[in-house]
């Protein structure tokens, strides 16, 4: 069996979730190397779209059989991906889809479901606190964040749930802490906080605790970090649920890709992962204490 090279291009670990992505990519890379001794798996991280386009080029220079890419910003990477694809490389896109997603761009699409992440959170709030006044902490101004917001709006549609404010917290604990502090100053009564990311939830909870405010009933975050899942398991009142958006999806994609090129398993098309709602009942199944995230 000849040597096959899989290139994996992912965002740099710039917050908890992407750190999880890096962790799982490295983990699965090791697995694949073990399973296929003649496989070469190269994992590269990039902080922004322009450098990720460079990284893809650099991977291609080394001679690729397959590319697994989790784009920082899909539309900006379409050209770079097309270039690789045109050279006959097997391309798997993970999580974030460009606006044009056809066979000229990818062979396989393992989709995280950004709109669903928002929608599931919205639906939970709608079902449990139908008259809630909610403050939202957004991530960064990029398309996936927008998709989550749209999903959330869809989730709460037709209820009395009212969004008081939306501000950017940059998927960062410190910024989320500040934004939450200011929300607490600004609004005398807040029922629910939706902050769509577990990292930001850390800052949010601290701000609430500091202000000793009791009106906030709970916080809905997302992604499925071990700390937050632990809280759900332990029945923490402030974190009753978490919406799963597993960074492990990159591992899934890599495994599928390996299967495609080594075992000629016909994997093509779209695999959509669910944005599962983690509750006290199912939390144990998603708890990985060894993961950094």
């Amino acid at each position, binding site marked *: 069996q000849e040597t096959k090279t899989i290139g994996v291009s992912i965002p740099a670990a710039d917050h*908890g979730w992407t750190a999880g992505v890096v962790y799982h990519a490295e983990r699965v890379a090791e697995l694949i190397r073990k399973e296929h001794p003649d496989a070469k798996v190269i994992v590269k991280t990039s902080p922004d779209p322009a450098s990720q386009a460079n990284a893809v080029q650099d991977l291609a220079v080394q001679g690729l059989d397959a590319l697994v890419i989790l784009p920082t910003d899909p539309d900006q990477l379409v050209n770079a991906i097309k270039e690789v694809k045109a050279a006959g490389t097997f391309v798997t896109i993970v999580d974030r889809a460009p606006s044009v997603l056809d066979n000229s761009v990818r062979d396989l699409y393992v989709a995280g479901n950004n709109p669903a992440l928002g929608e599931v959170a919205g639906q939970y709030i709608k079902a449990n606190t139908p008259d809630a006044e909610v403050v939202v902490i957004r991530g960064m101004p990029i398309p996936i964040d927008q998709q989550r917001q749209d999903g959330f709006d869809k989730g709460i549609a037709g209820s009395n749930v009212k969004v008081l404010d939306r501000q*950017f917290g940059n998927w960062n*604990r*410190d910024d989320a*802490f500040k934004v939450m502090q*200011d929300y607490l*100053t600004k609004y005398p009564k807040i029922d629910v906080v939706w902050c769509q990311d577990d990292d930001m939830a*850390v800052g949010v909870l601290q701000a609430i605790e500091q202000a000793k405010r009791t009106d906030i009933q709970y916080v809905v975050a997302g992604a499925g970090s071990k700390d937050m899942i632990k809280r759900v398991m332990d029945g923490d009142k402030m974190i009753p649920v978490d919406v799963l958006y597993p960074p492990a999806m990159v591992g899934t994609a890599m495994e599928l890709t390996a299967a495609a090129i080594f075992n000629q398993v016909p994997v093509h098309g779209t695999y959509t992962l669910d944005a599962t709602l983690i509750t006290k009942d199912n939390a144990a199944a998603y708890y990985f204490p060894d993961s*950094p995230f």
Partner: protein
Amino acid sequence: MAAQAKPARNWKDIDLRAVAPFAALILLLIVGALVNPNFIGLANLANVATRSAFIAIIAVGATFVISSGDLDLSVGSMVAFVASLMIIFMNSGAIADPHLMLVAAVVFTLIAGAACGLANGLITTLGKIEPFIATLGTMGIFRGLTTWLSQGGAITLKSPELQTIYRPVYFGSILGIPVPIVIIFAVTAVAAFILYRTRYGRHVVAVGSNRDVARYSGITVDRVRTIAFVIQGLCVAIAVLLYVPRLGSTSATTGILWELQAITAVVVGGTALKGGAGRVWGTICGAFILELVGNIMLLSNFISEYLISTIQGSIIIIAMLVQRSLVRKS
């Protein structure tokens, strides 16, 4: 008589330039009060002042580095790195007694900060590399080490006991004043004393305004510059001492872009980036201004979240224009 009229006028002149940042601060307070009545509440102002602590304290250190004609871009990463070291040290459980452990960790952190600063200073002075490049390099080094230590994730303080003891350092208050605010003022007072009232402070300014003159006056320029970097490192360590109890954890993203904020605070406070003059009190005023601008943005109801940085940028420029026109009128 003319000879007597002069000093009085000069006084006013010097005063006004030093007062200008405070004028901008007051202006912002008024704007804030108009935007949202909650703004001017004690709780909110205390929040803002408290959370400006990190940048303020780092910026006090930056005032030394900048006054001596250098620049330190690595402070943001240094916060992350030193904080990681501190938490890892506390998690190591090397000392059983939590109080003792905390004291040891504080000392350890200060040493770590000073060492990072020393590294910056030596690379810049001995290596004769432009401080911009040297500290850009160490910025990468510290950031990378942090990412590596945390394996890309977060490093969290494990012992709940330590957390409980340590928490009040950020969330507690002394005589009703939040601890971080007390520490800001203590650090600034010490720094002002050093800069204005000691030999070393004079040397910093001399080195910053003309290296040759300093050298011909028997000042060991490189030593003065290196010590400024060490002071910066110590200030970073103090900021870390406040940062860790707040969230009880750090990650690879901690402190990103704080260097820019610290430098901005220094410059808004009236210290020139070319060196040769330092205004420590102006610097913390600058840090408050920066934090206030963000706070006003969030409390106002009529600004699209997309436009926040636009408005923030405009406010900074306007505040500087106000300052300038004040100074020029003198």
